[in-house]
């Protein structure tokens, strides 16, 4: 689930759950809530930047494998398509975006962070982790296109081919993050400040959207292609 608040021209989308320990797992309900929030920002006449963050302990631990596991044959494709649509929406949104990562971000949630223009993270709050290799799962082509577009070769190799778990400081050194902060409050404050700076530039929103799509060509298009996912025989939900 998520909340959406407005501070002047900056929208803040917060991933929330039932309690502090909620993993903010992504399932159709969460994807739909996020999609509605993005639509509201997109259509708001005076929106000029978006910050995405989380409440509680975790940014998000990825897609809801429990929900999928109840009926994997159809639910895996449903979730992956919604994930790809969400990632494409963030690549297409017509305002600058800043991710304030205040907790562990795994797999689909890691990709969500990468889909933002800027990334700030709280030191000691958890790790960035692309877990697919450890689970023996392929990464769909569209998602790989997004990941590739944001990471340098050696970092790409460490993230995808080594499933490295990176804390904020290490992620910053590898060029994944734009800032690291001491605590959660400071992280969000910095992200909002950055968003306000970007908003103050007064950019034409459609031009900004076009620039982002041109800077990372082929990413949104690749995410638009939803291929049925083949779960390896060796994988157990």
């Amino acid at each position, binding site marked *: 689930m998520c909340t959406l608040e407005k501070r002047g021209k900056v929208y803040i989308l917060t991933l929330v759950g039932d309690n502090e320990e909620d993993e903010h797992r992504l399932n159709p309900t969460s994807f739909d809530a996020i999609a509605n929030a993005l639509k509201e920002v997109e259509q708001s006449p005076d929106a000029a930047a978006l910050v995405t963050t989380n409440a509680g302990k975790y940014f998000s631990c990825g897609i809801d494998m429990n929900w999928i596991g109840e009926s994997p044959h159809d639910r895996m494709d449903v979730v992956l398509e919604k994930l790809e649509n969400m990632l494409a929406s963030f690549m297409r949104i017509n305002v600058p975006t800043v991710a304030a990562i205040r907790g562990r971000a795994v797999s689909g949630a890691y990709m969500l962070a990468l889909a933002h223009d800027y990334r700030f993270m709280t030191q000691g709050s958890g790790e960035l982790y692309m877990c697919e*290799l450890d689970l023996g799962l*392929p*990464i769909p082509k569209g998602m790989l296109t997004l990941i*590739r577009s944001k990471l340098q*070769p050696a970092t790409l*190799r460490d993230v995808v*081919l080594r499933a490295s778990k990176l804390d904020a400081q290490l992620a910053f050194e590898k060029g994944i993050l734009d800032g690291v902060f001491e605590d959660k409050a400071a992280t969000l404050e910095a992200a909002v400040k950055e968003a306000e700076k970007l908003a103050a530039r007064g950019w034409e929103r459609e031009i900004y959207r076009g620039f982002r799509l041109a800077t990372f060509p082929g990413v949104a298009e690749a995410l638009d292609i939803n291929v049925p996912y083949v779960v*390896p025989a060796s994988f157990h939900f």
Partner: protein
Amino acid sequence: MCSLEKQKNIFILRRTGHGEHRFNPEFMDSIISAIAYVNQNAHQASAIIVTNDGKYFSNGLDLEWMSHDKEIRTQAVGDKFVELLAAVMSLKLPSIAAVCGHACAAGFIFALAHDYRFMRNDRGFLYMSEVDVGMTIPPSVMSVISSKVDSRHLTEVMLGGLKYGAQEALRKGLVDSSHESPDETLGAAINVAVEFGKRKCKGEVYLGLRLGAFPEAAEKLGIRSVSVLPSRL
């Protein structure tokens, strides 16, 4: 030529002898055969380490051999080198180049095709000599370089004709670590390989992730996409 051994459950492919290990079709075929064997037995191993005896990882293409029948042999070597790079990028387990000597031109590119590069820092350098020698690099081979070299350093690597010792190579992200001697370099590679063995870094999933991470190189080297995995659903 080259020897293939297994230590613990790690394949070690060693270019033997104290020559320059320059690439001609016969030499490259011996490496490609060894790689095919490793792929067939990938399920039993945790990684492959590619290393060298002597002072050279590889000093590049065998220009002397090529000079005896320039046009035909240049084509043959060029085609075979693409095949060699494709073979390295198609390995079904993690590949580590333990660079224990000079890696120049094609030798440097061969090292770049591996997933990881460890290098000795007591002697030897990486050197993309083509700009100095006046050789062009075809798009298929270039795709390996641009996949693996940080874009901040690509201009300097391709057009600067610089010789990078291990320390400088580490700074520029061309290698992952540097070590005091060949034994230490190989030892470090073995330690990392053992770590891979404890995880699921192998098989079709690993290959699929590598090709997915570097699709341009996969396409330009003519590597066909990995077969669809059978689903238990």
